């Protein structure tokens, strides 16, 4: 009798299962898409490193069978920056949540996009701080009920694609966890792209966001995503901001080319120093 093996299993630390995510949570779905993108892109796994911050999505680093780093809150991007600069051969993925990347880590997000550091950022946006119990995030849509805005959120939220495009990202896409094929394809595309790539994944938190806002369970959220999503490739990112119950614009918004940080650095040093310049190739300590 043959045993069926899930094709994504080789990419996971199965000895760490079961994972900590709630029933109906979308993070596991994004990891499945990520693993499928790894298969699809035939990327060299040994050269791949994954860096997470803190929070529910921050736990992704602990479940993938890769060199993986679970760093401090908000600092996945600067950690990844150091990793990439010290060993330019690495493909570095940052996999973290909306609060981690855009609140406590917001400064690093915009500066990494400005520098065009060659990082692939996957931002799982569940519209809330989930690990700590459902507090308002910079991404929480207007009027949502959260544990720290029990009467409704009244501060404006971030439109993340618009933010990272303005800061300089070369690839910006958004999908929901309903769009598993499109999401896996977007990840595959981002792997091919040199420079700062950003994929926002709208993902449910049935335990804290959907429940408090009477939006149903995980299945109801899939139906909601299906109904509300509209594919708008190339849409101006200024028009893709999210509201609580309105349209969810999905698609590839930005795909452009500009030299990445290391290419610019090399160009400058070669021009200024000529033969005196020594490539910072793989640093050797041992």
């Amino acid at each position, binding site marked *: 009798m043959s045993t069926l093996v899930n094709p994504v299993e080789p990419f996971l*630390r199965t000895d*760490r299962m079961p994972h900590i995510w709630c029933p109906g949570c979308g993070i596991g779905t994004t990891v499945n898409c990520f693993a499928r993108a790894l298969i699809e892109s035939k990327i060299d796994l*040994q*050269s791949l*490193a994954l*860096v997470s911050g803190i929070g529910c999505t921050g736990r992704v*680093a*602990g479940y993938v*069978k*890769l*060199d*993986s*780093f*679970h*760093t*401090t809150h*908000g*600092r996945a991007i*600067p*950690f*990844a*920056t*150091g*990793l*990439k*600069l*010290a*060993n330019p*051969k*690495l493909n570095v993925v940052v996999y973290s949540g909306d609060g981690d990347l855009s609140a406590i880590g917001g*400064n*690093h997000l915009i*500066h990494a996009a400005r520098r065009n550091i060659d990082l692939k950022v996957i931002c799982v946006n569940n519209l809330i701080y989930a690990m700590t119990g459902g507090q308002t995030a910079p991404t929480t849509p207007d009027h949502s009920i959260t544990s720290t805005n029990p009467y409704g959120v009244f501060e404006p939220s971030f439109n993340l694609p618009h933010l990272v495009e303005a800061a300089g990202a070369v690839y910006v896409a958004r999908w929901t966890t309903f769009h598993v094929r499109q999401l896996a394809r977007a990840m595959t595309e981002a792997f091919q792209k040199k420079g700062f790539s950003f994929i926002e994944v709208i993902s449910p938190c049935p335990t804290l966001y959907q429940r408090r806002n009477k939006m149903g369970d995980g299945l109801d959220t899939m139906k909601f995503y299906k109904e509300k999503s509209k594919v708008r490739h190339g849409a101006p990112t200024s028009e893709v901001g999210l509201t609580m119950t309105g349209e969810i614009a999905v698609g590839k918004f930005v795909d452009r080319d500009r030299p990445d940080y290391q290419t610019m*650095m090399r160009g400058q*040093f070669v021009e200024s*120093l000529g033969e*005196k*310049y*020594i*490539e*910072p*190739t*793989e*640093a*050797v*300590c*041992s």
Partner: protein
Amino acid sequence: MKADPRGVLTGIHFIDGDHACCEGALAAGARFAAGYPITPSTEVVERFASRVPTVGGSFIQMEDELAASITLQGAVWGGAKAFTVTSGPGFSLMMEHIGYAAMTETPCVFVDVQRGGPSTGLPTLPAQADMMQARWGSHGDYEIIALCPNSPQECFDLTIKAFNLAEEFRVPVMFMMDEVVGHMTEKVVIPPADQIEVVPRKHTQKSIEEYLPYGTNGDMVPEIAHAGEGYNFHVTGLTHDERGYPNMTPLVQDKLVRRLQNKVRAAADRIALFEEDQLEDADVVVVSYGITSRVAQRAIDLGRTRGMKIGKLRLITAWPFPDKKIRELAAHIKAFVVPELNLGQMVREVERATSGKAETFSVPHAGGGVHNPEEILKVIVEASR
């Protein structure tokens, strides 16, 4: 292992402590720095930014010290020897990542060129008031190593030492300079590369199947692997087991945190460096470090010419504190006098280590300048009564 000659600027130089620190880092094999500008430390990374493209490495100026202090750790796991440089306000922001380096056992160096505080304080003037912050600034129980140079030559020599200790023990090492030492220009002799001893990274020789990222064999310091080598290891700031996997049990916490402490404490006597002089007949011993040790020297010389029996103990390593040496001296001297550019930090350690066997006198100074040797002498006279 000997230093990579590409990073070693062999010769006799007339440079300040900040520049000497940079040359020490390059000689030690540092090929990556991340920083954020802050007086009076910026010259270290300015020189590094100019030098490192010609020795095969990189510098990046980050958006803040929170970023700089973790970017360097990414670089370490990418295979580089790396450091950052700052002063008080930036050092405060870096505390989070001193804890991360301690918890993940990331070998790295934090240079703090101390200035007057609290807060923005005295950006261009000296202090030594970050000494306790260096030891205790991040939350939780952990152990670090801290060195205190008192000259540009030592800024060179001890920066190499700092990197070597970081690699040997896999801890963050604090390099506690002060504004005067940082900006003081003196002769600095940089030896040939083959005379500079450099500790290589404790890289595992084990196969991918055998490797346990946080497993130890007796010496309490685990072997490291770098990203991209196929080990598929996991690093986390969460409490973790030998596999590096999160484990939230008191048992694993106890085992891990005790090891993080004990790996340094067990070697404390070997790590704790100090300079001693005229201790044989001393009734009073002046304990000092950094720039204050040079002022203290003048006070000791003045006292000796008046026939007073004064000895010198200069701390080169502040942390781990040389308990043993203080304890030995306390048994047969009358008193310790501790001048420092703060309102009494390391003096608490001296007092603790004496266990009441000798008196302890503080000579505090709020910073912004150095002591007048006469002030120190006055306390020495008082202490010897």
